[in-house]
């Protein structure tokens, strides 16, 4: 440690009159952000290289002859920086005016409207009246292939998309074509982004409405969307995402930054896989009775009767869980099974892709072979994988079991109507009915992950939470609540009031989760080995 009391690893500077201490190697832009000053920027993105070409992040550094690009100027001891000096503001207003010379006034039909950085910056600091009298340059619209549409007229040429494809996807399918004011982003003629596995990210990082999603095109206005932190369920990577919802429907998924899991990114496969959360035809009411005897019942009578059957049970229990089900649902399922008798099988089935697909420039992020979010959680909770790589088969013994059969979250799509015919008690908990549930004594409607709170364990062994973004249909209830109530009754415990409580029970009873709480997991998750070494 140097004598002056300064740490060799940090620098202290003054930004807008306030002293800030940041790690050495921090850019002025990031340093300003630590004290709450957001310096406008387009080309800079924390996940990409910084070309310092948009020129809107220029700030005044005392002693420097010109304004400095804050994205690539590193903070130094004793620097005095003004982000809001007259010179910096005048320059920003000037740059914004240049952006508007050719930018169309099509905000009313632009998907980015409401979350557009050009809109925001111009609203904050732009000139009140434009001086442009010349007709605007027109490039028109270009289908880039895949899910991506390009509106060249709206483009601010920040080249984030080109750099993403070059540096992160390492699949240089985008380029700047031509130069000067004739420059646009383009693909190699007719061959575009189709088949690229991570190209959807270019839509996310586009600061304006130049790159938009075909899937989302004109579907919803940004300000009408609710954002719910969640976890992608399409593979066991568990990329952190947001569910963007409107009218109780998921409208799109957007990656949520987590440097331990997915950086700023997610894959196109996961991004596109959300329609199932909106799928109609849900189970909306508990039902009792096999085959033709099936009838809707209320939750109270369903659970009371089921409790009675299980309490008197003591038979051989076979449990089928699912890797799409939360830890909380699965642990409650285990509790019920254990309370009901001797568990002779505890299995789950899950589809596996032929290979995995890493994001080359961000190798932490891998589209995993396991195409379900909680394979590792299920494993930790004692579920064994069965069946084939399509998520089928492997249930021959369960199908003909003559004891108790509990199924949660597996739609039994490949099973026939004889499934569970000889079971002494067959309980089916799911979001959708299934022909193979014909023999179920009880069919209980449970929520999807999008409608409930819970946690998954991803392939890195990281516990991650998700939150409800949709209201459940009808009488569907979270599995942790349904099974938790049942288990509590069977064990003479108090019914859990929240997913957090179920998780606390899990943490108390399981070595793997010991010591963890929902609060500790937070929005960014916790690696299990960090807790247990």
């Amino acid at each position: 440690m140097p004598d002056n009391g300064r740490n060799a690893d940090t620098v202290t500077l003054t930004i807008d009159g306030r002293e800030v201490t940041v790690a050495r190697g921090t850019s002025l832009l990031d340093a300003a952000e630590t004290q709450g000053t957001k310096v406008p920027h387009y080309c800079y993105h924390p996940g990409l290289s910084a070309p310092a070409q948009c020129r809107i992040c220029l700030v005044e550094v005392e002693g420097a002859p010109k304004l400095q690009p804050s994205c690539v100027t590193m903070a130094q001891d004793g620097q005095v920086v003004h982000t809001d000096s007259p010179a910096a503001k005048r320059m920003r207003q000037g740059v914004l005016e240049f952006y508007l010379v050719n930018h169309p006034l099509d905000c009313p039909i632009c998907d980015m409207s409401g979350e557009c950085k050009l809109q925001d910056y111009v609203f904050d600091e732009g000139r009140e009246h434009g001086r442009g009298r010349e007709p605007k340059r027109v490039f028109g619209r270009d289908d880039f292939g895949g899910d991506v549409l390009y509106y060249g007229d709206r483009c601010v040429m920040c080249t984030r998309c080109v750099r993403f494809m070059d540096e992160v996807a390492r699949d240089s399918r985008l380029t700047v074509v031509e130069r000067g004011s004739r420059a646009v982003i383009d693909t190699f003629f007719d061959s575009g982004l189709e088949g690229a596995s991570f190209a959807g990210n270019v839509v996310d990082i586009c600061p304006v409405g130049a790159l938009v999603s075909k899937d989302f095109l004109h579907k919803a206005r940004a300000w009408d969307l609710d954002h719910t932190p969640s976890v992608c369920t399409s593979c066991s990577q568990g990329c952190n995402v947001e569910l963007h919802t409107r009218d109780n429907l998921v409208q799109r998924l957007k990656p949520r930054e987590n440097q331990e899991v997915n950086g700023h990114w997610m894959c196109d496969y996961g991004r596109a896989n959300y329609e199932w959360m909106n799928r109609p035809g849900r189970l909306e009411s508990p039902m009792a009775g096999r085959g033709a005897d099936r009838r809707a019942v209320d939750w109270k009578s369903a659970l009371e009767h089921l409790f009675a059957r299980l309490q008197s049970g003591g038979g051989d229990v076979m449990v089928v869980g699912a890797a799409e089900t939360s830890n909380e649902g699965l642990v409650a399922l285990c509790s019920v099974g254990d309370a009901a008798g001797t568990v002779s099988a505890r299995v789950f089935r899950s589809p596996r892709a032929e290979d995995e697909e890493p994001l080359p420039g961000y190798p932490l992020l891998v589209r995993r072979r396991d195409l379900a979010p909680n394979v590792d959680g299920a494993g930790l909770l004692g579920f064994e994988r069965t069946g084939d790589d399509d998520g089928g088969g492997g249930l021959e013994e369960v199908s003909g079991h003559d004891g108790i059969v509990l199924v949660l979250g597996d739609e039994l799509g490949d099973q026939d109507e004889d499934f569970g015919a000889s079971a002494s008690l067959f309980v089916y908990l799911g979001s959708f009915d299934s022909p193979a549930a014909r023999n179920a004594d009880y069919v209980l409607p449970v929520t999807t992950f999008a409608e409930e709170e819970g946690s998954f364990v991803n392939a890195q062994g990281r516990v991650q939470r998700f939150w409800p973004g949709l209201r459940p249909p009808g009488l569907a209830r979270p599995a942790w609540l349904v099974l938790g109530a049942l288990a509590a009754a069977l064990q003479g415990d108090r019914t859990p009031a929240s997913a957090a409580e179920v998780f606390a029970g899990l943490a108390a009873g399981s070595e793997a989760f010991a010591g963890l709480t929902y609060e500790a997991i937070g929005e960014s998750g916790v690696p299990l080995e960090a807790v247990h070494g």
Partner: protein
Amino acid sequence: MTEIQFRNPGWAGNTGEFDLTEADVRGTEYVGESPLDGGHPSVSASLPYMLVEKNPDAPLFEGPYQERFEKIRSRYPTARAALLPALNLAQELRGHISPATMDEVAELLGLSSAYVRGVATFYTMYNKRPVGRFLIQVCTNISCNLCGADEVLAAFLEHTGTELGETSSDGDFTVIEAECLAACGFPTCVQINSRYFEDVSAADVPAVLERLKSEL
């Protein structure tokens, strides 16, 4: 050499005082013919010719051209650095850089096709579509412009019967506007294929075109 009306060729001539030959001025006598295989590796990238006859279907790269390509590659620490010389070479053979050519060059150098397109479109000397046997580039930048370059350009368009950037119906001429060609003391400078014609006035244009036709 056909007698020509315009003062030139090669530089500085409107005083009429000099007794150097055209070959002296251009250095053509000293230079001689440049070998197709590029000669010494240090100068292999110094071609290309801008040829009168183009073959859009010529293979990339065979025989002496393959040799030249290999020599070029040997002079740079990265394959990427050979991109401009390789595109130059492709244009020498084919006359323009088509999407298929970009694709082939990308393959040869291990680059993405989109990247090559980005680079090729950055540089104005790459013809993105076929041009005439003679590509006539008239400098209209300030020094030439002060001395009547606009009229020279207009004369070329008139006497070739073309629109700017279009190729004459006989396929002989494409006339385009060029930025400063670094021959400002000898206005108007016109680059025709590989050659500079200097001190060209609008009145000289018919003679220049006649001379070009006589070379076909």
